[in-house]
Structure formats: structure tokens, C-alpha cells
């Protein structure tokens, strides 16, 4: 097991014929990911990286039974790509692109309300279940199969967290980058919920950062859980001084300027083990798992 993707997932790639897409899809295939189809409008009927290419997602799903998508389409086409994925009722779509306009994301969130399809991203390295499936751009060579779940808003810090679990002599069940943008698809709560119910995950590492109140909401959810697995948390951004800004609306919406410390406090209060340095994650994981033995 694992969450959201595994070796059974039938993956289609939206925008498969691009240069960057080809590079990463090939790596994903070499890694063992079950890539069954590609979609590039106008290139239907051709074969790319040994899989059939279709003009539409719907067609690809009908012909191959694909149930998850990873999209390598440019930011301005993301809205249409997600709509296609949702209309074809895929379980999951992963959007790598950064720079998706916020208004497009508002429309996407509206579109996905009540839909079957879950979105990861945009601006994410994707999702990887080590040894089984890689949907995105993760440096797969750093991952090891194991029993720690990782969820992060920051792409690069996801990799740091992976390295930390390795240092602790542990591996990862599934690793998810939620995405660096203001508006994202699935959030900490949805992901944590899945990890809590996954029999193959023993503990979770949560990496937050400044901006919004996703971490506070996550902490509140965790605090109220009846049965819970241990969570180790880190929040980036304590050294950030007040930047140049204009207007107050940003602070008003969160009832004041929210700091990384505020987020850490909320996590602490919820019973999450908070580390001040990302390099301390491995030590906390080791404490947790030597105590269990």
C-alpha cells in the first residue's frame, strides 16, 4: 500500500511530447511507473516513448483504462488540462507547471468541487511511491521504500525531508509535494487523513512554510484526531524580515502578520513534534522508532 499512487496506477501523461516531459517521463518509466498513454492534441495516433499518444484525455482513458495523469503543460494551458482530466473522471492529476494565474486556480478549484478527480499542485515536484510509481520530477535516486509519509508545500524541502528519513535509516511510503503556489489542489489535511488510514505508513513528516494558514488548519485537524500516528513538523521562514509590500489586505485576511513561529506554535500545541532545523528531522524519527522497538 501507500497513498494515491502505487504500481497498479495506470498513468497517462498530458503534454507527453515536450522535451522536458520526455526527459522526465522516460525516467519515470525506467523507475517502473506504469505509464500507459500520452495526450498531445494534434498528435493522436502516434507513438512516443513506446506508448500510444491520443488527442484527448477521454480517448486515452477509454482505450487504456488510465486512472491518473501527470501534466507537463505550460501554465496558461493548465486550466484546460485539468478540466479534461476532471471530465474524464480520473482519480488523480498532478500539475508540475509553475506560474498558473490565480484566477485560473480559482476556476479550477470551483470546477473540482465535488468532482471525483483530486489535483496535486500546481508548482509541485509531484508524488512518488518509492519503488512503485513516480508522477512528476522527483530525483528518484534519493528515495527508498519505507514507512514514513512525507508531505510538503516546498518542492526543494521535500527532497531534504527525504534525505532526513534516509539518514534515520528509514524510507518513505509516499512523498507528496503539495505545491508552492498561493492556491493548491489537495492540502495537508486531505493528505494527512490518507496517511493516517494507510496501514503501510507509521509516521508522517510535514513541511510547511510562510504564507496562508494551511499549517494552522492542519494542526487543528491533527489535534482533534482520536487515533493518530506521530507527525514531525518543520516550518521554513523564521529569518524572513518584513518585505516591501503595499497595502494591508494581506495581513488583515489572516488577522495580523503570520510568522513561521506562529505556525510552529500551532503545530506544537496540536502535539506535532516540531523541529527548528530541517537537519534535526532524522534525530526525531530515530527517537520515535527506537522507542517502539
Amino acid at each position: 500500500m501507500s497513498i494515491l499512487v502505487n504500481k497498479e496506477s495506470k498513468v497517462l501523461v498530458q503534454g507527453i511530447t515536450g522535451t522536458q516531459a520526455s526527459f522526465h517521463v522516460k525516467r519515470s518509466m525506467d523507475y517502473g511507473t506504469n505509464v500507459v498513454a500520452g495526450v498531445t492534441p494534434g498528435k493522436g495516433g502516434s507513438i512516443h516513448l513506446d506508448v500510444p499518444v491520443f488527442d484527448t484525455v477521454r480517448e486515452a482513458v477509454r482505450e487504456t483504462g488510465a486512472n491518473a495523469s501527470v501534466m507537463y503543460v505550460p501554465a496558461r494551458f493548465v486550466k484546460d488540462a485539468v478540466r479534461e482530466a476532471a471530465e474524464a473522471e480520473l482519480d488523480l492529476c498532478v500539475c508540475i507547471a509553475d506560474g498558473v494565474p490565480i484566477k485560473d486556480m480559482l476556476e479550477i478549484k470551483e470546477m473540482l468541487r465535488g468532482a471525483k478527480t483530486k489535483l496535486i499542485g500546481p508548482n509541485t515536484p509531484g508524488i512518488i511511491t518509492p519503488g512503485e510509481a513516480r508522477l512528476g520530477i522527483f530525483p528518484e535516486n534519493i528515495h527508498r521504500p519505507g514507512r514514513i509519509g512525507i508531505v510538503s508545500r516546498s518542492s526543494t524541502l521535500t527532497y531534504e525531508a527525504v534525505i532526513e528519513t534516509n539518514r534515520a535509516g528509514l524510507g518513505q511510503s509516499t512523498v507528496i509535494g503539495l505545491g508552492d503556489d498561493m492556491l493548491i489542489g489537495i492540502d495537508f489535511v486531505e493528505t494527512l487523513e490518507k496517511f493516517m488510514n494507510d496501514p503501510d505508513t507509521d509516521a508522517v513528516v510535514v513541511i510547511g512554510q510562510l504564507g496562508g494558514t494551511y499549517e494552522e488548519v492542519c494542526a487543528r485537524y491533527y489535534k482533534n484526531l482520536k487515533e493518530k500516528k506521530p507527525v514531525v513538523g518543520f516550518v521554513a521562514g523564521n529569518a524572513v524580515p518584513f518585505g516591501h509590500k503595499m497595502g494591508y489586505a494581506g495581513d488583515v485576511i489572516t488577522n495580523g502578520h503570520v510568522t513561521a513561529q506562529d505556525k510552529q506554535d500551532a503545530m506544537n500545541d496540536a502535539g506535532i513534534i516540531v523541529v527548528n532545523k530541517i537537519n534535526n528531522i532524522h534525530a526525531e524519527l530515530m527517537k520515535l522508532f527506537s522507542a517502539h522497538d
Partner: protein
Amino acid sequence: MNIHEYQAKKILSQYGIVIPKGMIAYTPHEAKKAAAQVSFRGPWMLKAQIQSGARNKGYFTDKKAGRRGGIRLVRSRRDIMPEAEKMLGSTLVTVQTGPKGKQVGRIYVEAFAKVRKTFYASLVIDRMIPAITLLVADTNDEDITTLAILSPENILRVHLDLITGASPEQIQEVMEFLNLEPKVAKNLETFINGMHQAFVDYDAVMIEVNPVGVTKTGQIIALDAKMSFDNNALYRHKEISVLQDEYEEEDRELKAAKYGFQYSEFDGNIGCIVNGDGIALTAMDLIRGRGDYGTACFLNVKGGVDKDKIAAGIKIIMTNPRVEGILINILGGFLRCNLIADGIVAAASEVGLNVPLVVRFEGTNKDEAKDILEHSKLPIIIAEDMEDSVNKLITAMEESD
């Protein structure tokens, strides 16, 4: 991207929002002419056009500007020119500009609008819903941020529908919250839905009108206006992109943006090159608390995949005079480490490498990257993890002192 008050007001006025009559002036002479145009006998408001809030409570660093803030009421026509003279070319410091302040290059000359009551209004995205959200408050001259912290219940939040804006019930809710007279209702609706439509049409991320004035006759007037736009959507709003005030952006920031990178400056002495926001924040956290060391700037090359662009970005850091040491932390996923290595070598051979440089690579193509650096024979120090990279850099900087 931000625009100036007078530009934001012009946009809002196209949506039926009432604004005081005003004109922009770059010289004292233009200010005098503008004053005559916007009002026959005054009084007038002279408003420094810098992209910052709290201009009224700000102060000028220049002696000639006098003690008053960046928003000045002028009652007599013959005082317009001298007052404009004081403000133009002077540097205004506010709580939002930082201690360096911003030089005032233009002032907005406006007819003074007599109002009975004022309130705060803004539109912003509440990302937790998510929805475009109207915030209103009866500030009673209290600072809106103070209100947000001490009594958030005094700020009303209304989540607006992306397509239809505020419903009649929501308008009524705002009416009651602000204790407005019934005759204001129609104008309030025009005001709120005008703001909302402008927000949607122009891909704004923030519109703030602080204060909004209500006149004796029930008219609603935008006495100030701030607008920020989504940089990622500027490609579909050429008419907004041209309003970019290059003075408001740091020179190096602009250069970095041209290559698709993000660049920010602080007051320390270490230049950081990273490939993500999270890693930038974490590197800054590690550098802070190390005695005399702090972050001078960071360059986020994001998922850059073009070697020449990366070299250009690295040059921006290398030519920042504050930088006494360079820290490069790359966790390659989409970005391939070897491209960064090529970029470092290209930049160093062009502008020279006079300060210690520590590199830490992890992820996609990291071994190729290390090979490239080793073959270059440049005095580059390679580190194993993020903390190690900070330690090695600080040691090298201490030695080079």
C-alpha cells in the same frame, strides 16, 4: 506587480466607482496647473505617488520637505507650488517602504472631497476558501492592522462569487455592519461590484480602498486606491504591464525577473542561490544566528533549464557589492544540477570569483555536476548537506578576512 494610486483610481473609475477629480504632476508648475483644473477654489490634496500604504503617517528624510507626511492638504492656491516643490524629489519613508524610503517623482493633485464618514474596504483572495473576499471595517481612525490583531470581529469578511460578485443579501450585510443610511445602498452596490469586476477583469490579487468616503448625499467615493496584479497573468494584460514603474523595483531584481528568476535583497553579506522558496527560507534561517553573518540576497532560479540564463543569474549575485561569500544550494528535480554547474563555471570565468563559494548539490545529475566543478579548477568548496554548506562557507569567509 503594483501600480500607483492615480492609476488604480483611473481603472476603478471605469467601473462606475466615484473618485475625486485629480491630475498627476511631475513638476511644481504642473502641480499648479493641475490644481486649477481639478478645483476652482480648493482645498486640494497633494499626494506622493509611491507604492506604499501609510503615506500620510510617513516622513520625508530631506530637510526641504518639512515635517508633514506624504499626503498634504493645501487650502490656498498660492501654496500649491511651494508645497509641491518640497515633496517632489524628496524621499518618503513609511512603515511599508523600509528605512531607505522611496523617492517621490510625481504627485497626484486632487480636489479635496468633503465626506461625513469613512471606512476601510479591500478585496483579496482568502486562499483557505478559496474565494475573492471583501473586507470592510469601520476603522474610526484606528489602524486597520491593529484592528485585525486586536479585534478581528470588527472586520467583516464576505466571500464573493467569482462570476456574480456580491449578492443583494451580502450588500445588505455590509450596509448593516457599517451602519449606513438606506440611501447609500445603491451606491454601495455599484462600489463593491465595480471593485469585484475590476479585480476579475484585470487578474488583480489585491484592491484596497482606504479610506472610502460617504458624502452627505449618500455618494460613495474612493479617497485612496491600491491595486496589485498577478504577475503570472500579466501576459494577458499588456495595458497593465506597461504601467510597471521600474524605479519601484530594485535594478538587480528587474534583471533577474527578465530571466524568469526571483531575486530579493536584504542587509547581510552572504549571497544565496537556490532553486525554491522553501530552500531559500531554510538557508536564511541557518545563516541567521551566526554572529556577523546574514543574507545579502537570494536568487531563486526555480526550475530554470537554460545554462546561459543560469550564468546570467549567477552573475547578478556575483556583482552585488554586499556579497562576501556565496552559498549555492540546489536540490535538482526538474532542474538538473549539471546545468547549474555549467552556469557557475561560465559566470565565474566571465566576472571572476573573488569571494568564497560553497556548493551543495543533491538530486538529478548531481555527480555530473560535481565532476564539472572539479574539472574547472575553480576554488569552489563542495558541501554535503545544507547545514554543512553554511558551516563551510562561514569558515572560508573567516579565513579570507
